[in-house]
């Protein structure tokens, strides 16, 4: 019987003793409108967040002011790509790159997501043939060696035209500022198979304080591998004995052994005197 009543009446009755006189037909309509609006917003907003734009090797990313174009040699997608200060900034860049160069060897990798990637060029055309950015230990690259735990970025590209290229893998903020926590390996115009000497800094490339690598010396191809060890630095907020536990244990062991040795020696001297 109740089900045939208008909804607001049914609600009134269900609330029983807690019946609130302010529930009116008008209030119900407003509430319903609000809920529906939220649902629409959620659907639209969610779809907006999941919007991806696909690209192919034919998709050009031009930098008109710099007379340069960037292509990817593989398919992929991104959630956002914008040209800022003649630099393409990609967000959530899904790359279907299947290999990355790591110390003289092409390693197979699975397609990966790059959160933020910045690339720029000037007076040249760049074709990115491999791109890989890892936010932590990546076993498919470095095995199960925990001391390799670091963020890394690796890119290989071909270039036509003697220009300038810049890349930024968006590693940690200290990557560009602290040379002691980074390892940068740049090889320009070289055969990438086997292990070769890298180009030294100021020999065709440089790195700025924001972590942007600028290559000036490539005429055909470039390979850049960056490793960021800042995550392995000691956490200064932890107590000394935690950050330097190995030192503390070592010194305790030595002290303990010395004390023990002194006790043993004194005992044996006492025994000798007794005899």
């Amino acid at each position: 019987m109740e089900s045939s009543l208008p909804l607001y009446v049914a609600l009134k009755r269900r609330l029983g003793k807690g019946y609130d006189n302010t529930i009116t037909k008008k209030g119900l309509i407003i509430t319903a409108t609000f809920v529906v609006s939220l649902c629409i917003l959620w659907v639209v907003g969610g779809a907006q967040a999941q919007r991806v734009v696909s690209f192919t090797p034919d998709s050009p990313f031009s930098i008109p002011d710099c007379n340069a174009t960037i292509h990817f040699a593989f398919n992929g997608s991104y959630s956002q790509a914008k040209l800022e200060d003649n630099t393409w900034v990609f967000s959530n860049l899904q790359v279907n790159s299947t290999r990355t160069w790591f110390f003289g060897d092409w390693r197979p990798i699975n397609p990966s997501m790059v959160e933020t990637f910045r690339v720029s060029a000037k007076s040249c055309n760049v074709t990115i043939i491999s791109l890989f950015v890892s936010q932590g230990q990546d076993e498919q690259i470095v095995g199960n060696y925990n001391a390799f735990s670091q963020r890394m970025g690796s890119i290989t590209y071909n270039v036509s035209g003697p220009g300038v290229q810049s890349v930024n893998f968006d590693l940690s903020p200290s990557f560009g500022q602290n040379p002691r926590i980074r390892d940068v390996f740049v090889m320009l115009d070289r055969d990438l198979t086997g292990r070769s000497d890298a180009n030294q800094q100021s020999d065709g490339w440089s790195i700025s304080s924001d972590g942007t690598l600028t290559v000036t010396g490539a005429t055909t191809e470039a390979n850049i591998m960056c490793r960021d060890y800042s995550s392995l630095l000691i956490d200064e907020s932890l107590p000394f004995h935690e950050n330097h536990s190995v030192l503390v244990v070592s010194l305790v062991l030595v002290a303990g052994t010395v004390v023990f040795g002194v006790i043993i020696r004194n005992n044996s001297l006492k025994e000798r005197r007794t005899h």
Partner: protein
Amino acid sequence: MVNEVTIVAIFVAIVVVGIVAILKLTKDKTRRVSHLRLFIQISAVFVIFMGLLIGPFNDPVWAPLGSSPRDRLIGGDLLGNQLPDGISLPVLACYMPNGRTITCPIFQIQASIFPFWDASIGYNVFYATSGLERLVIVFAALIFASLLLGRFFCGWLCPFGLYMDLLTRVRKVFKKRHLNVSPTTSKKLSQSRYIIIAVFLLLSVIFGSYSIFGTELILGTNPTAGHDVVHSGIITYINEPFCLVCPMRPLCIGVECLIGSMNWSYVSQIAYGPFWIAGFYITSINLSILIAITVLSLAYRRFWCRICPLGALTGFFSTFTPFKQIALTKLYKNEEKCTKCGVCKRVCPTQATAVYETKGGDVTESRCILCARCVETCPYETALELKFAGKTVMKSRNWL
């Protein structure tokens, strides 16, 4: 990980059973300790190079070159980035092999000098502590181990010692008698160990002078001149000078290649500069020294131990005052029981003479590797005793 734990547990069980079996089943009292020592030496190789048991094996990621020597540092798993190269103990456990737990302290001392004051990256590894801190840790570990067991490490645990003992057994198969150096030469060889370690540590300081003092003593040693803090100038070639001449490195590399843990093509390609002079793994220098030591060890027992700089450090921290007073592992001689038969002097592989010449009491000397061969062969009951913390662990028995 569970699988690895099971393997290690089985290994430990085998070692324990093996030790008990040897002690119970060896009837010849003059060989019992020698058999036990050989068994422990072989077991120690697996403890030091745990990767032989638990991998990594044929890591496909590194194909086709094979595993890198630093692909898995099990000692680093235990100590983290404070001392990622591994546990420091006084044995020639070269820092090269894959899957090792223990690392040679001489390498760690050299590597700690550069960089010295900061945490920084090294070769394919990140050090979260400064070189100075790592230097303190390594020396603390050396002092601790030396006070605890002295050159027992040399006699019972060092893999290169095992290599030389196996060469001695090969010689015995051909029924050839060993040679002895004269007492004067033996003394001079013993003294040369200290000169060797001093020279190489000094070289490390010279090559790392920019890191320590901020000034280059030799041009080209400025690590910041290169593209990062590690790969630059002369540092790339000789930042660990002793490791370029140490015979353990080519031995380890060779064994790793033989068992498939490292691909030879990787070894031959990973070279800085002229391969045969300043290669990264095997050089003409360290290979020549390995060959020379091999030949000499066939003729003279434990030849490398007589000039080993690591043995010098261990001996210094266990047999020199004031360490000698508090060292826990010692060889004692009972003057009253000794008849000066000379058996102890004859069987000593390093020609240590204090056991014969000293009247009585503590006869441990820096040349003695505490192999207990003298204790084993001395035919007079309790004339010689190997003691730990004042308690007799082993004593000579009347086996006549």
